[in-house]
């Protein structure tokens, strides 16, 4: 199959700004466009609490736009499609998130995001903006071997981190503690993705890479970064049987553990397929005596219209469970 080149857009140069205009108009009770490319909570969090900023390229909607809101992120700095925003907008985001208790800049680990975050922090120092720190987040087991976790990419599983960190920072007054919590959530999270198809850039109209009908690739990144090579597409059950044990072995998860589970749609997989996949995930976890605290199935962090999915697991203790269960009100992440 070929990816869909025809897009419902206006001018390719304007897609990010027009997207943000539409998004913020639709969810004006939750978010506000503070300035170009800066999505902030409609109601800022209480003063004296740690602010949370997340920057990143677009093309992953509802990530991260949809997770700005109460109990979630304070600010999302939005870049071009699949391209991290530069330090200028990030600094503006840090300013917007500051409620007097410091700001944590969250970075989903990709070279561009990390480099621009570093630059932003250097500029902050030069400009005397204090009490800002950054945390690098990653979860994709396919991008670097065990032992080199810090070289791994950030993918769909960071969903868990935003949610729990957001809940934590709703009340947190200490930046270092917030960073430690982010690291704890990250270090308990593992993801692995697969794809059946490519996607086409709405900017260039070009297909990102070619994939033949009937092929699949395990380990693709959130921008279609190459994984472990192409193979013949497997059945739903065989795909899970291939992927899930790798995730379980990596942390590793043990019998008796409790976990959050995300089955993330990369774009154009159907929910029907995801439910069929989840059936196998649930069975395997049950047999491994890993208790599912809560599961989420849907499109959370997409790669445009790619057909594929990721499995993400996060091992939770009582603290993380409480944070997970805390209320949240983002446009695409609601919890009572």
């Amino acid at each position, binding site marked *: 199959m070929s990816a869909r080149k025809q897009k419902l857009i206006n001018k390719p140069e304007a897609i990010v700004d027009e997207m943000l205009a539409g998004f913020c108009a639709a969810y004006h009770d939750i978010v506000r466009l503070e300035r170009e490319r800066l999505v902030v909570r409609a109601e800022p969090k209480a003063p004296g609490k740690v602010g949370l900023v997340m920057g990143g390229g677009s093309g992953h909607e509802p990530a991260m736009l949809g997770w700005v809101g109460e109990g979630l992120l304070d600010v999302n700095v939005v870049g071009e499609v699949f391209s991290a925003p*530069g330090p200028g907008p990030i600094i503006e985001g840090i300013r917007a998130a500051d409620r007097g208790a410091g700001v944590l800049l969250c970075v989903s680990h990709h070279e561009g995001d990390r*480099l*621009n975050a570093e630059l932003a922090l250097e500029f902050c120092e030069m400009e005397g903006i204090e009490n800002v720190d950054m945390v690098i987040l990653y979860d994709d087991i396919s991008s670097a071997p065990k032992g080199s976790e810090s070289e791994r990419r950030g993918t769909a599983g960071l969903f868990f981190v935003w949610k729990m960190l957001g809940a934590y920072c709703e009340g947190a007054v200490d930046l270092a503690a917030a960073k430690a919590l982010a690291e704890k959530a990250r270090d308990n999270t593992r993801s692995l993705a697969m794809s059946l198809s490519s996607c086409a850039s709405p900017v260039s109209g*070009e297909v990102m890479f070619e994939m033949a009908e009937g092929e699949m690739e395990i380990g693709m990144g959130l921008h279609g970064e190459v994984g472990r090579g192409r193979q013949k597409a497997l059945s739903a059950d065989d795909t899970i049987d291939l992927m899930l044990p790798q995730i379980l072995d990596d942390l590793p998860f043990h019998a008796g553990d409790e976990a959050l589970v995300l089955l993330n749609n990369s774009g154009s997989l159907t929910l029907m397929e995801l439910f069929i996949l989840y059936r196998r995930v649930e069975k395997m976890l049950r047999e491994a005596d890993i208790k599912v605290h809560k599961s989420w199935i849907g499109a959370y962090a997409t790669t445009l219209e790619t057909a594929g999915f990721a499995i993400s697991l996060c091992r939770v203790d009582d603290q993380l469970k409480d944070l997970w269960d805390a209320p949240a009100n983002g446009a695409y992440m609601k919890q009572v």
Partner: protein
Amino acid sequence: MTTIAPAQLADMIGSIARRILSERDRLNRLDAALGDGDHGTSVSAAFAAAATDIAELKQPSAGDIWLATAKAVMNRMGGASGAIFGTFFLKGAGHLRGIERVGKSDMEAVLQAGLQGVKARGKAEVGDKTMVDALEPAVTAFCGADEFAGAWTRATEAAREGAESTRELVARRGRAKYLSERAIGHVDPGASSIAVIFEAVDDWWGANPTPSTLQFEEAEH
């Protein structure tokens, strides 16, 4: 010319912006083979923004121009490449502080600082299939030449050769790294745009613009 006045430096950036724009589609195509196909679009938007931002500065110094370029490139390009290309100008801007007209040795220091900044920021060395493969030989060639004019020409040739040398490499940095051996046979887009930038400067130098052709006024020194 043996020194470059700020207004001329601004004009030089404008020349780069125009040349990069004319190569945009080719650079996009190179990036489509190795990355996400946007390098031409982003690098041309970045230099266009730099030229615009510079035009709005009031009596800028050489350092102001270099810093404005750094910020425009970082913020308009975004991504890893924005940080890398932006760092090149950011570090150079540090060396231009207090300098009124840029001589050859000033430019050597600016290019060297930029190169070192890029390598420190992006952790790429020659052979990793990045813009460093073009930038490092270009800077070396520039510094090895005696005079401004010939220096740009030699740097351009070195940049072109460096860019071409990336064809046979496997990438160890940037998006192309995930392609492994599939990257072989394709020239790195970032290295190509470095070659385009040096070409633009070399041609601009050859055209030897006078202050009267420049966009804004400044006190002559």
